[in-house]
């Protein structure tokens, strides 16, 4: 890793979290630099949230070493948390209070004065596009609005690092794009973003660098582009056949593309030239119901590394 120690805000080595016999996070190493957007990509149960809770200094590590701003969460938890913003997986808003009351109260937890909290709240609601809802109760707001409020709330202490645990899970596509736009703005203003996601498009959109997690371990690390270059081909040919068992076709396709992956509903052929591969399939006398050429994504990287898809 390049850069001086000052530039590395989070450093973990051999970080482990066990719950009884179950090891949720199994000795992972990573570092996050100031100003970058760093992601943990993996399916549910990969250990992403447990990692985030340790980084957020609310869950003590079982083993290994973790430092934020050079400090140990075990001894400097409150000092570190004062410099973090946290967007948990589940919104922890008080739904019976108003939008602005939620922000005021949260700001007070950081020891900010009432006056300060009020002026910051006005700025933040503007940023979250919620100014016109400032005085309304939280409960009737849409999922996307609640999520934006949670983000606005997490910024009350002007955090240096923003931790986002599955920021857009459960949101509709439009709400996701609005949220991504806000996160881009934050990143441009210098906030370091650390997020978990099981959406490969989110990881590709937001992350400068990410680690792929599976069963509590890191299986790959790099930028979205370098991961795709390293673990996948340039293009993917997706084939659907009229039979339930796509596995039977895998052998027949031998020699087409570099390799194939069999999914329950389709067959993926990894190749640098998708159109050529499609032509080869036809030359073999096979007639798929549909064939589609697309570019490789992080989903393909994950599939290659673990043999499983990200979202079941």
């Amino acid at each position, binding site marked *: 890793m390049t850069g001086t120690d000052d530039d590395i805000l989070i450093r973990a080595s051999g970080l482990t979290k066990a719950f009884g016999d179950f090891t949720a996070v199994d000795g992972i190493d990573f570092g996050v630099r100031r100003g970058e957007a760093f992601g943990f990509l993996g399916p549910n149960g990969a250990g992403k949230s447990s990692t985030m809770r340790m980084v957020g200094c*609310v869950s003590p590590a079982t083993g290994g070493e973790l430092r934020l701003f050079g400090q140990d969460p075990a001894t400097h938890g409150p000092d570190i948390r004062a410099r973090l913003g946290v967007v948990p997986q589940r919104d922890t*808003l008080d739904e019976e*209070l108003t939008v602005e009351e939620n922000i005021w109260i*949260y700001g007070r937890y950081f*020891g900010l004065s009432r006056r300060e909290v009020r002026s910051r709240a006005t700025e933040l609601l503007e940023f979250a596009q919620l100014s016109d809802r400032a005085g309304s109760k939280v409960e009737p707001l849409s999922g996307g609005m609640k999520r934006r409020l949670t983000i606005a709330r997490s910024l009350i202490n*002007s955090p240096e690092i923003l931790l986002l645990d599955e920021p857009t899970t459960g949101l509709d596509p439009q709400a996701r794009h609005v949220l991504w736009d806000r996160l881009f703005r934050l990143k441009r203003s210098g906030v370091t973003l650390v997020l978990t996601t099981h959406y490969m498009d989110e990881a590709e959109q937001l992350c400068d660098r990410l680690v792929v997690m599976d069963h509590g371990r890191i299986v790959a690390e790099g930028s979205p582009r370098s991961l795709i270059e390293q673990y996948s081909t340039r293009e993917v040919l997706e084939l659907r056949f009229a039979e339930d068992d796509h596995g039977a076709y895998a052998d027949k396709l031998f020699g087409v593309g570099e390799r194939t992956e069999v999914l329950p509903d389709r067959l993926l052929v990894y190749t640098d030239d998708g159109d050529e591969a499609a032509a080869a399939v036809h030359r073999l006398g096979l007639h798929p119901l549909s064939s589609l050429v697309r570019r490789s994504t992080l989903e393909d990287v994950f599939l290659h590394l673990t043999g499983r898809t990200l979202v079941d």
Partner: protein
Amino acid sequence: MSVPTPTAARPQRWRPVFGYWLTAYKRTWRGSIFGRFLSPLLFLLSMGLGLGSLVNRSAGGVGGVPYLEFVVPGILAAQAMWVAMGESTYQVLGAIRWQMQYHAMLATPIGVDDLLLGHLTYVAAQVTSATVIFMAVAACFGAWASWWVLLALPVTLLTGMAFAVPIFAFSARQEGDSGFNILFRFIITPLFLFSGTFFPVSQLPVWLRPVAWVTPLWHGVEANRSLALGSPDALAVLGHTAYLLVFIAAGAWVARRAFRGRLVT
């Protein structure tokens, strides 16, 4: 964006937690205050005047004391127990499981001790306000024989907290609300009836009396009654108060452990 100011010094962090619960109380305070006036009123009418006139006529009061003056200090202590229980069950479990306010707090510089202290301070404020209202209403009925009764306010607060603190620990260990029914039916209700509130513990079978002696309610009732009747036995009142303080301290130790076990995982 503006520059963040330094966070509050460590000993102050419970204050915004207390502030949160007060803000949350705003949505129900009218009904709650109304209930706090109504409940002593109903007790004074039914127990003091209704049942009291019967007791006074047939037995000449309790040990020569008119029944109203006997029973009201006891009910005062018992009410603190009820208020403490009401504030320490669903709200605590909800802050862990449903609305998750504790989790929101713990993501900030606030720690487990801060949120415990801040929330308990809020419960103490609720017990105090209910006690003050009760004492004022009872005064209108001439239930107090002496100014010594003013000292019953801190004693009643301690009685309430001797329930609130261990119930916080109990609530932090619950998964759902079924445990609260057990607490209510098998602990709080029997204590209410058999801790010397309505009749002296000496009326209980000999083997049952020690049970009353170890519960905090009996100590609160005895100390309150001694004060309210105007010639307090100073040593006894101090003894009861000390017992309540020890009970609270032990409860706090258990509650800290329970909160840590539940929230820091």
